[in-house]
């Protein structure tokens, strides 16, 4: 009779713009707007502050959907060695993130060992070796060009021989569209399971906050090839990009975002906080 209740076109356009500029994809924005239109009373829909809060709540809810007590962590898992596999496309910040994780877990009194399983890219092993020195942790590395799976195998063996209780595996960046490289990664994952019960306990996808909708495709493919991811690390959030694409990823794959990379130094890693993230997304 009065027509479907919806927020005003101006308010809608303003919200759409803010969310899309933050890289929350078109379809996800439509979904959030539909939910807000449904949840709010007609009179509330004309109040920008009420609508904005409702949008924020909707996003917080989506981001929290993957956060269950089943999210694995070394703190809640008894199995040792605890193996964490770090994956993602080229240049997203995997190696640097591993340095940050090593630093963090060392400070928490765990003894991480790094596995330099990127045996492909020029000076990848040198890069991780320098980070291992800076973090004060051991590293297992072979020659450039060698088998990544062999490095993982040796790292797990080192952990089993008492060198450490945690293995963090660095892998070469690879585009999710390259079947042979993704198959190689699936093999690395299987090898990680030999001699380490329950391994890999974590598979973290490292995503660059400046990436657009392609990150969704990355998450889907890496998840498929690795039979599931356990979480996401979103890097380079210290830039001007807002990383809104994780909203769609959380919605579609129910994955928790665990950490944010906030810079290039070893301390530049923070635990993900959905509310703080959403406030930054829409401001």
């Amino acid at each position, binding site marked *: 009779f009065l027509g479907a209740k919806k927020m005003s076109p101006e308010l809608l356009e303003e919200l759409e713009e803010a969310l899309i500029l933050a890289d929350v994809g078109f379809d996800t924005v439509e979904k959030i707007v539909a939910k807000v239109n449904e949840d709010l009373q007609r009179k509330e829909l004309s109040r920008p502050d009420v609508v904005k809060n409702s949008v924020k709540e909707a996003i917080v809810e989506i981001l929290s959907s993957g956060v269950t007590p089943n999210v694995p962590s070394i703190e809640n898992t008894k199995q040792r060695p605890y193996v964490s596999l770090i994956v993602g496309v*080229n*240049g997203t910040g995997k190696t640097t993130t591993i340095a940050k994780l090593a630093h963090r877990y060392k400070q928490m009194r765990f003894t991480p060992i790094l596995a330099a399983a990127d045996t492909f890219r020029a*000076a990848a092993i040198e890069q991780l070796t*320098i*980070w291992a020195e800076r973090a004060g942790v051991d590293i297992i590395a072979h020659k450039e060009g060698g088998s990544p799976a062999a490095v993982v195998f040796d790292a797990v063996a080192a952990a089993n021989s008492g060198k450490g209780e945690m293995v963090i595996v660095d892998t070469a960046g690879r585009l999710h569209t390259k079947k042979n490289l993704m198959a190689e990664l699936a093999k690395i994952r299987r090898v990680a399971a030999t001699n380490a019960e329950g391994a890999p306990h974590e598979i973290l996808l490292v995503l660059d906050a*400046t*990436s657009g909708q392609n990150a969704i495709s990355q998450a889907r493919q890496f998840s498929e090839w690795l039979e599931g991811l356990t979480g996401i690390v979103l890097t380079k959030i210290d830039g*001007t990009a807002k990383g809104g694409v994780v909203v769609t990823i959380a919605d579609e794959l129910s994955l928790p975002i665990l950490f944010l990379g906030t810079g290039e130094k070893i301390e530049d890693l923070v635990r993900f906080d959905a509310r703080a993230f959403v406030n930054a997304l829409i401001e």
Partner: protein
Amino acid sequence: NLTLRLQSVFQKLKGKGTLSEQDVSRAMREIRRALLQADVNFKVVKDFIAEVETEAVGSDVFSGLNPGQHVIKLVNQHLIKLLGEKVSKLKVASKPPTTVMLVGLQGSGKTTACAKLARLIKQAHRFPLLVAADVYRPAAIDQLEKLGAKLEIEVFSRGKQDPVKTATEAVDYSRQKGWDTVIIDTAGRLHIDEELMNELKMMKQKVEPTEILLIADAMTGQDAVNIASSFDEQLGIDGVILTKMDGDARGGAALSIRAVTGKPIKFVGMGEKLEMIEQFHPDRMASRILG
């Protein structure tokens, strides 16, 4: 798929010769969605749609095409025109050496692009010198040295010394040794990092490069306009290399960058191997963006 979506928009238009304002506005909503999903910047999409809309209304459907195909053809033409000239070569300095600075955000593919360009230059029977001016990233110098060794191209490095000093010394060195093209690899940095942007400005001032190329990742989202305009305003860029185009990113960042800087995309990176660099083709990019 955009073609199918447009066809359903125009289902009732069979036999009509011209497109009305209402037909067009419904079609533009689909085009807008496609461009946003391709990561073209929100504001760039707005301007682009407005431009295409004015031309589409009242236009005669091209013979042999249905209205949906007609709209796509118009959009495609506009995209190609916006994306720019096809053959965009590297400038050669009137007085050697030609100096090229590669700049951009962390992880965009600069070091790899330096090596790829050096290889092309060598193939063209010129004499490239690579310069390792990233003194921050662990093993960055190692990385460039390994790539240079592979190509049998000399890499000039002065360790962790001030990168501006290294760059200027490299240019002097090139004059002494007869290298006619100097390719400078710089550290990845944020456009909002004042100190590091000043370092680039200082390097530009001292080196007076023939060309400054912005290296941008093809999967960059809405932020592409901020990055590109900031680098262009602060430093001035002469062209762009779009990397990791061998993936399935639609690459809308190409349109955003071009729209906001007016600078040409000169090359695209098509893989990790050093031979995987190609000329930019605006027509191929346009169909890719449209999906």
